[in-house]
C-alpha cells in the first residue's frame, strides 16, 4: 500500500468533511442569487463589477460551474481512495478467526464475565452449548490441553456497510454522468395539429433530431370553479414512417415515453390563430381549418367560405369569436361563438355543425436519461448501506472453559464495533442464561 503524503491526503476523512462542508456552504449561494438569468439582470441587480465577477465564477449557473463540479468530483475521488485505503484492513478483520485469539487478548475484551463451576470440563461445556445455541449464537469450538474455546459471531458483513454507502454515492454520480453524457434535456412547443421531430436543447443553442415525429392533436386546460388551473392535457401522437405508433393523453405527472425519450407536460402558449371544424351532418364529411384573424378560408367540396372577423379576449386567451360564413350564393351569416362551443347553424337548415377554438401550442420538456436506473439503484443501495452501517453491528463472543485445581473456570468475553449500550444489554442477558447464579 502506498503510504506517501499525497495518498494520505486523498484518503483522509478530514478532506471528506471539508469537501462536504464546502459543497453545503457554496450550494447556499445558488439559493440566494437567482440562477440562469441574463447578464443584464445581474448588472441591474448587483452592479456591473459584481456581475462581471459572477460571470468569471460561473455564479449564474453555479451548480454546473467548473468549481462546483470539481468539488463533487473531489468528493467522489476521496471516497474511492479512502475506500481502497481502508477496506483491506476491514477485510482482514472480517476474515479473522476468533478461535485464533490468545487467552490474554480475549480477557482484555470490553465485556467480560468470569465464574467458577464445579464438575468436569466436558460436562460443563455440554451444559452451556445448548444455551448459547438457544440464544441464537452458532458456535465453533477448539479443544486444547489448557481448555476449550468457543467462538461465535454475528453480522460480520455489517463491517462492509460503510463501503456500500460509498459505492452507492458513486453509483448515483455515475448515473448522473451517464445521464448528462448519453442523454439530453430540452423543450419543444408544438402547435395543435402540428408536428415536429427536432427539440431545442437546454445546455446549448443546438437542436437534436428525435428520430421520430411527435404531433399534438389538441391541448386543453381545465379550471376549478375558483379559476385555479386543474389540469393541462395534451393529446399526442408518435409517428414513425408515416405510421402512428403511439397515441396518448399526457398530463403533468403522467408523461409519454417512447424509445427511451420522455415527454413531460410543462407549459403552453396561446396563438392568434383559430382551429375551425365544420361537419356536414347529412353526409358526415368533416373539415378542419387553421386560420388567422380576418382571413378567408375555403372548403371547396362544400363551396363554403369562412373567416373570423372579430374576437374578445381575456389576457391572451380568446373567450368568444365572431364567425363570418357564406355557402354557395346565399347571404353570408355572422354569429358569435364561445371558444370550444359547438353549434348548428340555423341559417343553413341545421345541416352544418361548427366549432371554433383558439389555437394553442403545448410546451413539452423532453428528456432522455439512460442513467435514471443507476440513480434509483444508487438510492436504494444507500438506504440499505446506511441501515447496515448505522443500525447493525458486528458482535463477537468467546467462551473459554478451563480446568483449574479440580474446579472449572469459565470466561465469557464479548466485543462489538458499534452500539455498545445495545450489546451491553444482550451480553447481560447472555450472562444470566449461562450463569443463573450471577443474579
Amino acid at each position, binding site marked *: 500500500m502506498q503510504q506517501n503524503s499525497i495518498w494520505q491526503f486523498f484518503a483522509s476523512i478530514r478532506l471528506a468533511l471539508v469537501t462536504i462542508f464546502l459543497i453545503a456552504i457554496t450550494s*447556499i449561494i445558488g*439559493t440566494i442569487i437567482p440562477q440562469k438569468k441574463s447578464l443584464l439582470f445581474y448588472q441591474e441587480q448587483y452592479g456591473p463589477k459584481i456581475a462581471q465577477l459572477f460571470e468569471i465564477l460561473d455564479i449564474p449557473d453555479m451548480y454546473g460551474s467548473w468549481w462546483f463540479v470539481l468539488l463533487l468530483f473531489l468528493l467522489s475521488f476521496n471516497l474511492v481512495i479512502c475506500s481502497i485505503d481502508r477496506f483491506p484492513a476491514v477485510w482482514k478483520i472480517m476474515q479473522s478467526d476468533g478461535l485464533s485469539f490468545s487467552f490474554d487478548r480475549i480477557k482484555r475484551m470490553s465485556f467480560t464475565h468470569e465464574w467458577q463451576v464445579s464438575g468436569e470440563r466436558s460436562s460443563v461445556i455440554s451444559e452451556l452449548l445448548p444455551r448459547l445455541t438457544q440464544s441464537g449464537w452458532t458456535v465453533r469450538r477448539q479443544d486444547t490441553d489448557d481448555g476449550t474455546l468457543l467462538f461465535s459471531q454475528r453480522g460480520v458483513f455489517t463491517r462492509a456497510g460503510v463501503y456500500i454507502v460509498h459505492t452507492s454515492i458513486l453509483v448515483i454520480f455515475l448515473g448522473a454522468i451517464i445521464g448528462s453524457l448519453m442523454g439530453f434535456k430540452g423543450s419543444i412547443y408544438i402547435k395543435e395539429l402540428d408536428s415536429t421531430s427536432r427539440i431545442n436543447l437546454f445546455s446549448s443553442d443546438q437542436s437534436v433530431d428525435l428520430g421520430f415525429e411527435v404531433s399534438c392533436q389538441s391541448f386543453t386546460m381545465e379550471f376549478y370553479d375558483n379559476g385555479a*388551473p386543474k389540469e393541462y392535457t395534451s393529446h399526442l401522437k408518435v409517428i414513425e414512417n408515416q405510421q402512428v405508433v403511439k397515441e396518448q393523453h399526457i398530463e403533468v405527472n403522467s408523461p409519454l415515453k417512447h424509445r427511451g425519450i420522455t415527454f*413531460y407536460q410543462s407549459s403552453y402558449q396561446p396563438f392568434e390563430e383559430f382551429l375551425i371544424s365544420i361537419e356536414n351532418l347529412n353526409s358526415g364529411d368533416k373539415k378542419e381549418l387553421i386560420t388567422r384573424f380576418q382571413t378567408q378560408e375555403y372548403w371547396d367540396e362544400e363551396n363554403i367560405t369562412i373567416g373570423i372577423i372579430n374576437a374578445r379576449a381575456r389576457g391572451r386567451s380568446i373567450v368568444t369569436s365572431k364567425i363570418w360564413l357564406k355557402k354557395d350564393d346565399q347571404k353570408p351569416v355572422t354569429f358569435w361563438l364561445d371558444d370550444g362551443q359547438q353549434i348548428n347553424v340555423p341559417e343553413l337548415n341545421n345541416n352544418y355543425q361548427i366549432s371554433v377554438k383558439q389555437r394553442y401550442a403545448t410546451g413539452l420538456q423532453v428528456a432522455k436519461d439512460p442513467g435514471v436506473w443507476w440513480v434509483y439503484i444508487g438510492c436504494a443501495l444507500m438506504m440499505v448501506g446506511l441501515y447496515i*452501517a*448505522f443500525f447493525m453491528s458486528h458482535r463477537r463472543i468467546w467462551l473459554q472453559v478451563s480446568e483449574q485445581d479440580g474446579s472449572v473456570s469459565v470466561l465469557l468475553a464479548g466485543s462489538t464495533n458499534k452500539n455498545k449500550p445495545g450489546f451491553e444489554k444482550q451480553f447481560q442477558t447472555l450472562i444470566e442464561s449461562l450463569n443463573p447464579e450471577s443474579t
Partner: protein
Amino acid sequence: MVKEISFLLFQILLVVTCCGFAAYLISFISPKKGLKNVARTLLFVSWILQTLYIVSRYYLAGYTPITTHHEAVFFFAWSMTTAYLSFRWRHTVKNFGMFVSGLVLVLLLVAAFSPREIIPLEPALQSGWLPIHAGFSLLAYAFLGLAFCGGLMYLLQERELKSKRLGYFFSRLPSLEALDQLMTYCLALGFSFLCLGMITGIIWSKQAWGTYWRWQPKEVMTLIIWFVYLIQVHQRFTVGWRGRRAAMMALVGFGIVIVTLWRVVA
C-alpha cells in the same frame, strides 16, 4: 354533513388537547400519579380525533390533506403526536408528555387560525407521490423535533446536576439516560424518514419535471439538513457520542430545519 362533522372534530380535538396539556401541566407542578394517567388518556384520545379529522378532510377534498398551510401544520401536529406515542409505547420519559402536548397544542392553534378552506390541487401536485413524499418528510421533522425537545431537556437537566444544587427541575425532568434513549430513538427514525422523504421526492421530481434534482432552494436546504443529520447519526451510532455534545447537535440540526421550513418552504 361530513363538513360539519369535520368542523366539529377539529373543535373537539382542540378542547381535548387543551385539557390534556392542562392535566400534564398540573401534574408537572404538583406530581400526582392519577392525573398523569388522565393526561395520557386525553392525549391518546386527541390522537384518535386528529386521525379522524385527517380522514374526514381526505373524504371532503379527495386527496391527502397536506398541502395548504392549515393542513400541513395540522399534519405536523399529528406526526408529532404519533412520534411521541410510538416512543411512549416502549419507553417512559418523565414529564415529556407535558412538553409534547404543549407543542402539539401550539401547532393546533396555529392550524386553527389559518384558513381552513379546501383549495383544490394544482396540476403539479396531482400525484400519488404527494402523500408519500410529504408524509415521510413531515414525519421526519416530527421525530427530529422530538429529538430537539429531548436535547433541550438534556441540557437543562445537566446544568441542574452540574450546579450540585438540585433545584426545581431536577425531580421533574427525566433522567439523562432516558433522554439519551429518547434522542437515539428519534434520531434513528427521523433520519430514516428523512432519507425516504428525499428519495421519494427525487422520484416524484423525475416523474413530473424530468429532472430528479433541480437545485431548487428547498432541495439545497434539504440536502444540507441531510448532511447535518448524517454527521449526527454517524457520531451517535458509529463513534458513540452521547451526552452534551450529541444534545447540542440535536439542537443545531433542528434549528436549521426550522429556518428552512420557515424561510424556504412556507
